[in-house]
Every structure is written in structure tokens, then in C-alpha cells.
């Protein structure tokens, strides 16, 4: 089948090249210097202080966004699921941020909302007589977490809502008649029912959150210093801005290893559904 052949080539060739380059001294600024480098690129990457910071930033970004979107998603999904007027429109409004392309989302937040001089947040702060915050200078990583969480909250909400709608209403009613309060119903009925959907949300979002790039590029450009540089952005810096092919490739191999650890869990969760 052509699909399989194409994917096989797509999967194997670039990856093999990445591994090959990761063992070469290869800088685009000094051509003709391609020589065997051994583990040099890995050691170089590993001893770079920016490396551990970028790994840490990647973790903080992924976990931070997951916490906000899963808890927020559960709350909003349960709210939307209740009887109300204009439910269809509420749904549409809530899921909309997901369809906004990353550069647009990030620039809207950077300029219109978080700008220390003219942003809406600054206007609100001034209204209350407070000093406006320069978000991207003072809390660069947190600001990016906020933007990315805004983009992914709709996804979590939508999937959790879909799962919530398949919850057995009669069972809920019976529990209520037996005198179960809101929290015990939530804890013993709703949450276990959503467990699978929550797992899926966490794993799929993790794949995409590990790859956050455009949001950083247009807001902080990884800075100040390396304060908001994640692994993707660090590799981009080394390979594209530093023209260091070997170093970028070594970073790429490390990224593959990390992603695979996550992937193994996802494959198990999704694979169960195939049978």
C-alpha cells in the first residue's frame, strides 16, 4: 500500500539522517568540515546549562497547561452539561479558541491583553489603581502557559463533555435519591466515568504540548535569557540560529527519546480500544 511505503520513508529516512548528523561535526557556517564527532555533540548539549533549564521549562509548561485544562475542562464541561438557554451558542463560544492558529493566539494575548502599556489587563490594573504587570518580562513562562492553556482548554472541555453526555442519568438520579450529595456523586460516579476521557486528554495534549513552538517564537523568543526556552525552542536555536547541524541533531535524538516515553503510555491507552 502506498500509504505504508510513504510513511515508512517519512519515518525512517529523516530519523536516520538525524542520528547520523548527531555524530558529525557539521556547521553550516563552516562547510567542508564534516568529520566524525563521536559523542561530542551529545556531551556539548548535555553540559550546556540551557539544556537542563529547557527540559525543566518543557516539564513546567506541559504540567502547568495540563493542570489548568483538565481541572478547568471538567468544571466547564459539567457546567455546560446542565440545562440552560442557548447551550449550543455557549458550546460554540467555549470551543472557539482551539481553532485559532498559534501565532494569532499568541499575538492577541501579547498585544491586546498582556501589553503593559495598552493591554486590557493593564487597563484593568489601572482601573483598580494598581501597577500594570509587564507579563512577558516578569513571568515569561507563566504567560506562555496561560496562552497555551487558553488554546487547549476547549479541547479538554469538548472531550470531557462528550464523555459526560454518555453518563447514565438514571444512575445519577438513584444516587441522589439515596441522599448522595453533590461531591460524593461527583467523586464516585462522574469522575470514574470520565477517567478514560481524562487519560486520553492528558496523553494527547502532552504530545502537542511537548511541541509548543510558535507561541514562544512570537512572544518571548525564548527569553529573557533562557527563561522561556523549551526543548523544541532550544533545538531551533542551536540548529537554525546557531547553524550547528550536529548539535541540533543531537538535541533531536534526545527529543525523540523523551517523546517515546510518553508515546508508550498513549499507545497502551488507545490500543485497548481497538479490540
Amino acid at each position: 500500500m502506498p500509504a505504508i511505503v510513504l510513511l515508512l520513508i517519512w519515518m525512517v529516512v529523516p530519523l536516520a539522517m538525524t542520528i547520523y548528523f548527531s555524530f558529525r561535526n557539521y556547521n553550516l557556517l563552516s562547510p567542508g568540515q564534516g568529520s566524525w564527532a563521536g559523542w561530542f555533540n551529545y556531551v556539548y548539549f548535555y553540559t550546556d546549562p540551557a539544556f537542563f533549564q529547557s527540559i525543566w521549562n518543557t516539564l513546567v509548561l506541559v504540567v502547568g497547561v495540563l493542570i489548568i485544562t483538565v481541572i478547568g475542562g471538567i468544571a466547564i464541561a459539567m457546567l455546560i452539561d446542565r440545562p440552560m438557554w442557548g447551550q449550543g451558542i455557549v458550546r460554540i463560544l467555549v470551543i472557539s479558541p482551539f481553532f485559532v492558529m498559534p501565532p494569532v493566539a499568541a499575538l492577541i494575548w501579547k498585544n491586546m491583553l498582556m501589553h503593559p502599556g495598552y493591554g486590557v489587563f493593564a487597563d484593568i490594573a489601572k482601573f483598580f489603581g494598581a501597577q500594570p504587570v509587564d507579563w512577558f518580562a516578569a513571568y515569561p513562562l507563566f504567560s506562555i502557559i496561560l496562552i497555551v492553556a487558553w488554546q487547549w482548554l476547549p479541547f479538554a472541555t469538548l472531550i470531557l463533555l462528550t464523555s459526560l453526555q454518555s453518563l447514565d442519568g438514571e444512575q445519577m438520579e438513584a444516587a441522589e435519591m439515596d441522599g448522595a450529595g453533590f461531591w460524593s456523586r461527583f467523586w464516585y460516579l462522574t469522575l470514574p466515568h470520565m477517567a478514560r476521557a481524562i487519560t486520553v486528554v492528558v496523553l494527547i495534549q502532552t504530545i502537542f504540548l511537548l511541541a509548543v513552538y510558535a507561541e514562544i517564537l512570537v512572544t518571548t523568543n525564548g527569553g529573557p535569557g533562557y527563561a522561556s526556552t523549551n526543548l523544541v525552542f532550544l533545538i531551533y536555536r542551536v540548529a537554525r540560529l546557531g547553524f550547528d547541524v550536529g548539535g541540533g541533531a543531537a538535541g533531536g535524538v534526545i527529543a525523540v527519546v523523551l517523546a517515546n516515553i510518553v508515546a508508550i503510555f498513549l499507545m497502551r491507552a488507545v490500543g485497548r480500544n481497538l479490540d
Partner: protein
Amino acid sequence: MARAVTTQTKVGNTVVAWIIALLIFFPILYTIITSLKTEQEAIAGFSLIPSFTFESYQAVQSQNDYFKPFMNSVILAVGSTILALIVAIPAAWAMAFNPTKRTKDILMWMLSTKMMPAVAVLVPIYLIFLNTGLMDTRFGLTILLMLINLPIVVWMLYTYFREIPGEILEAARMDGATLWGEIWYVLTPMAVPGIASTLLLNIILAWNESFWTIQLTTTNAAPLTAFIASFSSPQGLFWAKLSAASTLAIAPILIMGWFSQKQLVRGLTFGAVK
């Protein structure tokens, strides 16, 4: 049996839900409002009432040739999706109707290719594009986007095709349908909704792809993602213009997205949540 809901609770639910929904939607709403302001109004402090001028929309076209990146986005998103469908339909069809022992393995392997972080192959893909003249071409990027989304397309089609009952084909055969009659009158109508959903979701994903489109384009093939990202450089405070460009960039996809909520859940969870 539905529970009796008092009007009071319903009013409460409605008010809280609308406030939260509007808060979440606010950044988009404010962008649309700002796009209808003049540049002076845009930085003049918080205001929800614009002067309803379209000068920013005219400005992005006349000063930045907005139509070009917009068309690039259309060509890349639609082109890569159609290409992916052509490659994926036979594969998904075969796996859904003639599954073998290895079908599941192949599907899982396809899923695993999606897990490969794009940045891991940034170096080789960049060099290949540089050395083969594919850099900044729509052709190269279309092929790349097709490959990136191929696993999702195969998966989605597979989960849809699998729901077509095989018995219906036997029934048609019993009634004397020819092979082509079978395909044309029985299978095609049943497969169309699945193919359409896949098409829709994939266009959304390709339209918003913001790693490769920024890495591999400069001017010629740059779609809206790269075009908007270029606004981040210190171009000054042209917020009304930025808002106009942003509104036009997200409007088509937003509307498509509203129509494909259900498919989105299915497609992005690889059928794990329906």
C-alpha cells in the same frame, strides 16, 4: 425520565455559563472589535465600541499583499488534505474490510509516527529542502503537510469505514448488484460522511500547522501562520492592522470548526472517545 428543573436553577446555570463562555471567547471578540477600530483607537484604552472602519482591512491588503499568504494557506491546507485522502482511502479501505492479523500492528505503527516530535527531524528536513530547491515552495510544503497528517487521516477513515456493515454488501450482491454497482450505489454513499468529516478536520489541522510552515518558508510560499508570525517583530503598534489580518486568518477555520465539533473529538482522540 428527565428531572424537573426549576426555572430558577436554569436561569442560574444560564447566567454562569454565559459569563464563562464570553470570558473564554473574549480575546477573539476583542480582536474582531479592534480590527474595526482606527490605529489611534486601538491603543487608546479599553473600549468595546469601534468606529466600524474597514481601513485596517484595506491596509493589510494594500501594504502587505494579504491575499498572497491567504491563498497559500488555502492551497497548502486543501492540497495536502486531498493528497492525503487519495493515499489514505485505499489503505483504510483495505484495513477496514479485509483485516489481517497485522492490521492492528500497522495502525499502531502509523499512530507512533505521529508521536515523533517534528523538531527531531528539523535538521535533515531543513537540509533536504535547502539542497533540493524545495525551500519556500508550495509543492514541498504540501507534500510535507500531507505526510504529517497522513496517520490521522488513515486512522479516521479506518474508524468510519469499519462502521459500514459488511452484510449490506452481501445483500446487495444477492439482489444482483454488479461490483461497480456495489461500490457506486452502496459503499460510496455510506463512506461519504466519513470522508467529508476527515477532510474537514484535516483542513483545520493543516491550516493551523505552525512549525514547518514557519521553518520552511520565507516569502513565496509563506501561509498565514508565517505571515502573522512576522508581525511579532518590532513593526510598531499596528494593532488594528494585526487584528484585521488575524480576524481574516481565523474566520474560515472558526466557522468550519463549529460545524465539525463531533468529528473533532473522534479524529483527535483516534476514535478513543466518541
